[in-house]
């Protein structure tokens, strides 16, 4: 089992450690609900160093990245970030991730559970004059998320970072260490993701925690449990749950990540075909009555007929009702459709509704 550079910090902060994607990671420190609240109201700090980093450089890097991913990196300026998917030829999703255009390379920040698979897939499809490097062990990654994160970063940098726009990054120095600060996140709140050399990670953690604790921000270390709820309240997909190799961006409502008019890319033909024929199911957001939690794998019904399965669900601490995502057969994907799920032999009423569930997030578009 691998450890991130912050393993000792998790133990020091009483993290409940679990095995996740080959890493020992904290699922929570104090309480998942309190950690969710901290991010929605103040600021939380997440170790996300388990995520993988793949660098692609060389003369043909742009063309190659455009060949293996669905969004169009030719639109990217240096220091700009883009959310994208990578597909199999049949249109199934290999992974979803952020790409940064850095001065020297494209940096792909991939899901921890997919990093080996992604690297192999990219290597397998290698073409042109490019260099591909799996640098996952060399980077630390921290996510600082919440409405007070900008104020905390300003205090640490001793300057104003407010002009850094959403989905842009820049190089900065924290405590004498070079880091990349990116205005991105997976929570729906304003926030930053910070990348740097794995060896200086702890120094950055200490600075963030000490500055946060000494200021009005009351920074809270947060685990994977809170991260999962925060992203679900925003309707963000989690690979392995809501998107897999069995689902396509069309079915998952991620077609905005696919630029059909760019040059050829892996999966394009299959998607074009699916677009023409029409999809039979769609990923939707749902809310439910009562307090029972709709969990992954529960069946969704309409008038007694099974029409789909829950892929992710939770009791939303922010909204105080159960929410879920799942694939349902068309035409039951339409907003306002009344549906039911079965939880422990009881039928629970719900409705299809528009995502995100949490609409008052502070993220800067």
């Amino acid at each position: 089992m691998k450890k991130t550079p912050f393993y000792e910090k998790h133990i020091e902060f009483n993290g409940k450690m679990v095995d996740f994607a080959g890493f020992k990671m904290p699922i929570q420190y104090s309480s998942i609900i309190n950690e969710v609240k901290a991010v929605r109201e103040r600021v939380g700090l997440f170790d996300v160093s388990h995520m993988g980093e793949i660098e692609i450089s060389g003369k043909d890097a742009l063309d190659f990245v455009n060949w293996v991913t669905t969004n169009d990196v030719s639109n990217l300026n240096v220091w700009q970030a883009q959310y994208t998917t990578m597909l199999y030829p049949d249109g199934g999703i290999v992974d979803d991730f952020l790409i940064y255009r850095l001065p020297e390379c494209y940096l792909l920040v991939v899901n921890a559970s997919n990093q080996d698979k992604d690297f192999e897939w990219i290597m397998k499809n290698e073409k042109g004059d490019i260099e591909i490097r799996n640098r996952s062990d060399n980077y630390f990654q921290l996510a600082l998320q919440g409405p007070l994160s900008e104020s905390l970063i300003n205090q640490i940098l001793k300057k104003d970072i407010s002009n850094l726009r959403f989905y842009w990054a820049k190089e900065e120095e924290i405590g004498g260490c070079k880091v990349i600060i990116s205005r991105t996140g997976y929570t729906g709140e304003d926030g930053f993701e910070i990348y740097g050399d794995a060896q200086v990670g702890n120094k950055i953690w200490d600075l963030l925690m000490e500055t946060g604790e000494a200021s009005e921000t009351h920074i809270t270390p947060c685990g994977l449990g809170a991260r999962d709820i925060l992203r679900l309240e925003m309707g963000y997909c989690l690979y392995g749950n809501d998107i897999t190799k069995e689902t396509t961006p069309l079915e998952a409502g991620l077609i905005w990540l696919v630029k059909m008019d760019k040059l050829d890319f892996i999966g394009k033909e299959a998607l074009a075909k699916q677009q023409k024929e029409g999809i039979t199911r769609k990923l939707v957001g749902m809310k439910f009555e009562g307090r029972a939690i709709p969990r992954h794998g529960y069946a969704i019904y309409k008038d007694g007929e099974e029409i789909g399965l829950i892929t992710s669900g939770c009791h939303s601490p922010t909204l105080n009702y159960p929410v879920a995502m799942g694939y349902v057969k068309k035409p039951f994907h339409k907003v306002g459709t009344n549906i039911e799920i079965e939880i422990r032999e009881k039928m629970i009423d719900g409705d299809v509704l528009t995502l995100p569930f949490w609409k008052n997030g502070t993220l800067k578009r």
Partner: protein
Amino acid sequence: MKILDELFYTENHEWIRQENGEIVEGITDYAQSELSDIVYIELPEEGVEVHKGEAIGTIEAVKTVSDLYTALSGKIVEVNRELEDHPDLINKDPYDAGWIVRIKISDPEELKDLLDAEEYKGIIEREE
């Protein structure tokens, strides 16, 4: 981890307080801490006859869902309705405000099967 000397326990991490032929049951501090963030509890109906070891309810936490077992046979005489709106009382105060059911026991012999605080401590140490 808080374990109260005056209570009895089960291997399923329930605590039992004896009160004149009735028992009050809840889940232990260890159990609530393992479950963490309880968001919902399905309570049994009052008046129902239950049998030792039977699942009588469900405790739903953010991470997982767990059955609630009755430690003893008897009739449910009261359930803690406060938990319907405030299931987190179990996290905050597992041995008092977070009590779950009161049972009029039908077989006092079963009391002998319960663990005392020392024995329960041993079980937790083995699990940790």
